[in-house]
């Protein structure tokens, strides 16, 4: 019956029109959600997945099946995410090192109170004593320059140990942050796994998880792999942090060396294997960089003190007594820079004389030579210190250059990620117009069909509208 077929056709069109309204509304919804989240950290733009329904063939009549909205799809690139996480860890580590070294190096710049200035003042006070050995003011000058030198060693050594303990505190704090992030990630991981198992897109939950993993990679170097249960996150050396919906906390404990060690969930010490991120940077500075500087500084302080004391012993002080130790350093050598002090108390105890008479300056040359002769390390005191200055400067400039280089790399990767996943207001505005037009057109279909239906129903009534 052809008239029935015609009515069915109108209904089909009405149905398709309603579907089109729903789909356009869904698409507008996606667009508005994208615009709403255009500045949300970690948000990945979503596109509506629209597909055409299969056409139906009934009694030789073909009619379109309409349209349906299958869902919203987040546009993300997992590989880029991984690269960004790695680079973030590397940069965060370089930044931590760079900022610690920036702090450290101010103690090695010529400020007038640094070790180089103190050595200079000590050296010139000895030269002055050489010209005027019996002057009490020249003698007092040497004593106070010696005290200043010891003070400069203290200041520098203390600055290093202060920075070291700041890094130590950072280790504990960072581990706590890592644990909190791991717990949150594990939770989200479970939810994503459920969605995936149901064949759905992870969507915003995945966005949140990726953002947290990104934050985690700032704290320490992580390795992320996919498994059936979701992401598996481990530290660089394979210590698990998150496996599916299970998180594993790291612990800290004070080691025999007095600093905080990081243990995995089984209690194994993994401190030395941690690299990257704030944690890796802090451990590097605390356990490698500063100890190396301190060792050099201690060697310099202890060898110089011995050399100067040996020179003192060659002469006689102004009281005619054999020269006694000018400097005293802790016997162990470790902590020499922090512990060096001037052991004589009176300017008359400086061993100026080579023959015991008060007018002789014969031993001053020996005292001065302690400053210019090579120490057992093979370097003169000023060379040894200059080497340390070079090393500190070089380390600092390398760390900051590294951070800059990684930063550029990271900018590029972030740009790439943005070009894939970022919300473009222009694009969304265009889509808005597109979906608005489609919605208007779909609405027109519905109203047209309604009019047609009314016309058809009124065909026999003789009334006209």
């Amino acid at each position, binding site marked *: 019956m052809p008239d029935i077929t015609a009515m069915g056709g109108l209904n089909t069109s009405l149905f398709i029109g309603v579907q089109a309204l729903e789909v356009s509304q869904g698409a507008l919804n996606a667009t508005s959600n994208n615009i709403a989240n255009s500045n949300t950290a970690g948000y990945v733009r979503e596109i509506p997945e629209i597909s055409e329904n299969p056409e139906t063939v009934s009694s030789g009549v073909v009619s379109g099946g309409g349209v349906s909205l299958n869902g919203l799809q987040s546009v993300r690139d997992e590989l880029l995410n991984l690269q960004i996480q790695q680079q973030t860890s590397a940069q965060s580590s370089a930044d931590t090192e760079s900022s610690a070294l920036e702090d450290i190096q101010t103690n090695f710049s010529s400020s007038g109170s640094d070790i*180089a200035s103190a050595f200079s003042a000590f*050296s010139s006070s000895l030269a002055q004593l050489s010209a005027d050995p*019996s002057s009490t003011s020249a003698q007092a000058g040497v004593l106070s320059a010696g005290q200043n030198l010891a003070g400069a060693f203290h200041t520098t050594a203390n600055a290093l140990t202060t920075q070291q303990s700041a890094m130590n505190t950072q280790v504990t704090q960072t581990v706590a942050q890592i644990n909190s992030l791991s717990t949150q990630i594990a939770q989200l991981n479970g939810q994503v796994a459920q969605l995936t198992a149901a064949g759905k897109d992870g969507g915003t939950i995945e966005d949140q998880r990726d953002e947290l993993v990104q934050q985690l990679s700032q704290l320490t170097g992580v390795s992320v792999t996919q498994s059936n249960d979701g992401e598996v996150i481990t530290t660089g050396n394979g210590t698990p942090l998150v496996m599916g919906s299970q998180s594993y906390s790291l612990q800290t404990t004070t080691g025999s060396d007095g600093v905080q060690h990081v243990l995995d969930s089984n209690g194994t010490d993994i401190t030395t294997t941690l690299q990257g991120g704030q944690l890796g940077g802090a451990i590097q500075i605390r356990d490698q960089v500063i100890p190396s500087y301190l060792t050099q500084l201690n060697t310099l302080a202890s060898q110089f003190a011995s050399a100067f004391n040996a020179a003192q012993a060659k002469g006689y002080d102004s009281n005619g007594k054999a020269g006694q130790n000018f400097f005293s350093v802790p016997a162990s050598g470790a902590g020499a820079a922090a512990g060096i002090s001037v052991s004589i108390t009176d300017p008359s105890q400086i061993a100026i004389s080579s023959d015991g008479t008060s007018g002789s*300056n014969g031993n001053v*040359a020996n005292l001065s030579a302690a400053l210019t002769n090579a120490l057992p390390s093979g370097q003169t005191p000023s060379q040894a210190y200059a080497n340390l200055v070079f090393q500190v*400067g070089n380390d600092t400039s390398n760390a900051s250059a590294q951070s800059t280089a990684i930063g550029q790399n990271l900018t590029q990767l972030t740009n790439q990620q943005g070009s894939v996943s970022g919300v*473009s207001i222009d694009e969304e505005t265009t889509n808005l117009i597109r979906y608005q037009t489609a919605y208007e057109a779909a609405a027109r279909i519905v109203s047209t069909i309604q009019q047609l239906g009314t016309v058809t129903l009124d065909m026999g009534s003789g009334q006209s509208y």
Partner: protein
Amino acid sequence: MRVNPNMVPDILADMQQSQSAVNIALQEVATGKKVTVPSDNPAAAADMVQNTLETANVDQYTQNVSTMLSMVQTADSSLGSVVTSLTQAISLGTEGANGTNNTSNLQAIASQVQGILQSVVAQANTSYQGTYLFGGTETSSAPYTASSSSSSGYTYNGNSDVNSVAVGDDMNVQLNLPGSQIFSNSNADVLGSLSSLVTALQSGNATAIGTATTAVSAALSNVSQQRVFYGNAESQLNSQETALQQETVSLTSQQSSLVDVDEAQAATDLSQAETANNAAEAAAAKVLPQTLLNYLVPTQ
């Protein structure tokens, strides 16, 4: 290809970079230094450690040279007076030995020589700012004091040591000769020979006067010889002073090439950095607010 719609991080990074360039340039202009912390130039910072030490030392060496020059010149002029005095004593001795003088004349000559002896002793006790110059390393007390037990009437309180003063790295200049080598040398004893001459003149023995005069001549030639040391020291110190001045110049120029900023360059850098920063800010202000929305007419 889709481009990254979010320009904010890029623009921020660019502006931070240009801002940091302005800061660096500003700091260089303000401080006049291109190396303020070691990381600015690690090698230059390391070289500056040595430069700082050398500069302080050279300053002190220069002061030492000028102090020593005064001391050496004082000693040299004392010995100059001694030479004059001894020459005078020799002519008095020669006059006393010629046999034409009566006793009262000889006594008069003897007292003249006695006066010379006292003035020579005064020169031997010369001090410079409280430091006795001819006592060896016994610089705090007068080297020669009157003594009845000594044949010359004076005894030496000093020692035979010498002081050397640092005037350069590994360069020490000897400052003094002990008085025992100049005034009471056993082979050419200034004080002893003058004292013998006085005794001989008082006794009127022409032979003894002659012998004593010869001894004074020998002492004179010894003093002249020893005086050469001070002349040498003076010229050594003068040439070291010149060397130290040159070293000061070269250390200063090393310092400026290591850490000092080229003012013209720094000013140019600063103005370039400012221009770049302004451009970055202007570009950001132009680009950031632009979206399609600016061009869509709102529908009524």
